[in-house]
């Protein structure tokens, strides 16, 4: 009798422990990937396969929390209401876990039908056959060529927005120094030397002397002439501008030890080290414009177009008088483009509906809220070539004057753009992490670009080849 009682107690304890574990497992799944939407999707798939005439259910994964989910679901609901064949449900996954979550979903063959994707993850995923060919997704609408992610000759994703690198400047500082503004059209773009010279005139010490004058005190600078963003992916534009690059054009070979590339990166580092016209930046944080133009301590800074929407507009309302210009150049006039893509996962059972949804999702009307505030640029070519549409986009108080923006951004984007390297290279995330570390000592003058790159070529190559 006693023994039986003990056994029962033991069983009870075991049952409780496993019960508790089962509960916790349940709750983690529903936290992470929204169990309910997963079930909906499964039942949708089944019914979609067996019964005709019922709605096809699609899932769309985004990164973010509850707010983002609610906002994006509101957009999807508009789509759901606009027709009666497809119903889209949004799944929100926290940014930090996005790829990890997708990886485990892929293993379980439970990937969403469609989703947002990190730029750097597109080619690695495409290599595993995770995306459908979407080259016909925008049939009849011309999307800018440079926004297509290509793998093995196929378009595996299109960016949802366009972004290019520009030169932003503080008009008041130019006016105070009596210097003409940087050129807004690529035809008159400054050479690197002209750029550095102007930056010197705009770099002032505590006594009001600029960097070209005798007695200039570089230890007491109160206003810097320029700041060239040195995040590794943005540095590539200078390598290209100097006739070098990081990779061969097909993305298969590493050419970062090319002397032109090394020279270009060294020139950027020398702005702080030698020319004394730039504040020190170690290329580790992505807050270039807030740190430079918006603090009112730097006259010119390079960065992405999106800064107009993400921070410069607010600063403008608080009195910042800024302008946009094209980048200076070393040998070739060039800027680079990028933009986060949306994809159709190859595990979907409804490829046509999935493409239809993404086509609708990426339509100009849906992106308009971000476009009219200056955060995104349209992906459709007609907005760059048709003046009426361009005016509809740019004639708006969020933007710099129309003529300036038209030539410094729109014409520049059409005529002088190369793709950021994640559009065509594998392992780029890891490569940039290693490159950032390799160049870390360069910015403070601890080593030269040549020593850093040639001395670490094997490490860089390992990272690039994914070894």
């Amino acid at each position, binding site marked *: 009798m006693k023994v039986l009682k003990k056994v029962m107690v033991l069983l009870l304890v075991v049952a409780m422990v496993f019960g508790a574990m089962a509960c916790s497992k349940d709750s983690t799944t529903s936290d992470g990937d929204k169990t309910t939407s997963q079930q909906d999707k499964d039942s949708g798939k089944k019914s979609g396969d067996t019964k005709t005439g019922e709605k096809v259910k699609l899932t769309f994964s985004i990164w973010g929390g509850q707010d983002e989910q609610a906002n994006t679901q509101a957009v999807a609901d508009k789509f759901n209401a606009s027709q009666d064949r497809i119903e889209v449900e949004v799944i929100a996954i926290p940014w930090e876990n996005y790829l990890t979550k997708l990886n485990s979903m892929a293993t379980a063959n439970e990937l969403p039908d469609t989703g947002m994707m990190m730029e750097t993850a597109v080619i690695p995923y495409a290599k595993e056959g995770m995306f459908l060919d979407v080259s016909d997704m925008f049939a009849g609408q011309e999307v800018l060529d440079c926004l297509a992610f290509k793998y093995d000759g196929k378009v595996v994703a299109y960016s949802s927005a366009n972004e290019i690198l520009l030169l932003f400047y503080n008009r008041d500082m130019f006016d105070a120094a009596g210097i003409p503004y940087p050129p807004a059209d690529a035809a008159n773009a400054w050479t690197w030397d002209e750029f550095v010279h102007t930056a010197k005139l705009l770099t002032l010490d505590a006594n009001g002397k600029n960097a070209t004058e005798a007695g200039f005190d570089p230890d007491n600078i109160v206003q810097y002439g320029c700041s060239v963003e040195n995040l590794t992916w943005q540095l590539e534009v200078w390598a290209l501008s100097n006739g070098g690059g990081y990779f061969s054009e097909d993305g298969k070979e590493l050419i970062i030890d090319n002397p032109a590339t090394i020279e270009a990166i060294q020139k950027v580092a020398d702005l702080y080290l030698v020319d004394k016209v730039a504040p020190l930046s170690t290329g580790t944080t992505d807050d270039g414009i807030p740190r430079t133009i918006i603090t009112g301590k730097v006259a010119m800074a390079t960065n992405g177009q999106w800064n107009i929407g993400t921070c410069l507009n607010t600063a403008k309302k608080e009195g910042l008088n800024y302008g946009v210009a094209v980048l200076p150049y070393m040998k070739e006039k060039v800027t680079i483009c990028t933009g986060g893509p949306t994809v159709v996962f190859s595990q979907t059972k409804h490829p046509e509906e999935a493409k239809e949804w993404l086509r609708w999702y990426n339509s100009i009307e849906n992106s308009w809220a971000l476009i009219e505030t200056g955060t995104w640029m349209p992906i459709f070519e007609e907005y760059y070539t048709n003046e009426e549409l361009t005016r509809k986009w740019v004639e708006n108080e969020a933007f710099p004057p129309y003529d300036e923006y038209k030539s410094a951004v729109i014409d520049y984007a059409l005529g002088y753009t190369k793709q950021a390297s994640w559009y065509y290279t594998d392992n780029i995330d890891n490569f940039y*992490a290693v490159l950032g570390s390799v160049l*870390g*000592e360069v910015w403070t003058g601890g080593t030269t670009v040549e020593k850093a790159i040639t001395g670490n070529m094997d490490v860089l190559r390992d990272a690039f080849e994914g070894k």
Partner: protein
Amino acid sequence: MSRLVNKTKRRRSRMSIREERTAYLYLIPAFLGLTFITYLPLLGVFTISFFEWKGISSPKFVGFYNYVKLFTRDHFFKDSIIVTIYFSLLAVAGSMIYSLFIAMLLNRKIPARGFFRAIFYVPYVLPATAVYIGWSWLYETNFGLFNYLLTKVGLKRVQFIANSKLVVPSLALISVWLAGNLIVIFLAGLQNVPQIYHEAAEIDGANSWQRFRHITVPCMTPIIFYNLLMSLITNMQIVVPALSLTDGGPGNSSMFMTYLMYRYAFKSNQMGYACAISFIFFIIIAIFTGILFATSKAWIFYEGGD
């Protein structure tokens, strides 16, 4: 007589067996929890470390390749061990001295003692990222407050976190500033040092340093040991400053091991490789904790004598 002894012995042992069984029974839930939440994952990490597993592609068994790669051709690994240990030593030593000092001040009968106790505890409860971003503006090379003050008094600018030689000491200083929890524990310990020892020593003519050295410190050794252990483990697992400020740089100078592991696991999706790192990291922490425990017998003074 001898029978009686035997009988009591047997009876006692039967009771103790029953008690032991009950004890084990009560231990089962905790044991299961530890097994499934700690030991099995550890085993899992160890197993995965023998695979090449890049997220979506299926895992491929590679034997000791990940470990060989770590020790032979990894660009970050060696630096990251050195940096982590260097940081931990600075941060642990700094925060122990700082918090014991502050705790002794706060143990005196000063006016508004409660207020000051709260003040020194506040950093510990602030959100970590906010703290580091705030400090980064103090440290900032071009326009930061510290450099502003330095230039005002005519000194050269110091690249606190942009310089590879200064970044670890600068970050360790933040860690010291954050050590409010150690202060609270030290305070509790100080209040338990018997006042009669101090009084007796005072009558014998001991000065305040002698009293600190020969009464306070020995009585505090168990508390010091506890704080040392906690501080060591926390600081060896440091990750927030690398995540929020330095990105492991400049160069590899703040590439803390936990951050390196995070980067391989969740940025470049090399799960097997990241598992190998975390396993090595686990061993390193275990070694340091082991050293601390092994030496503790020699210097910890327990009043109860045991």
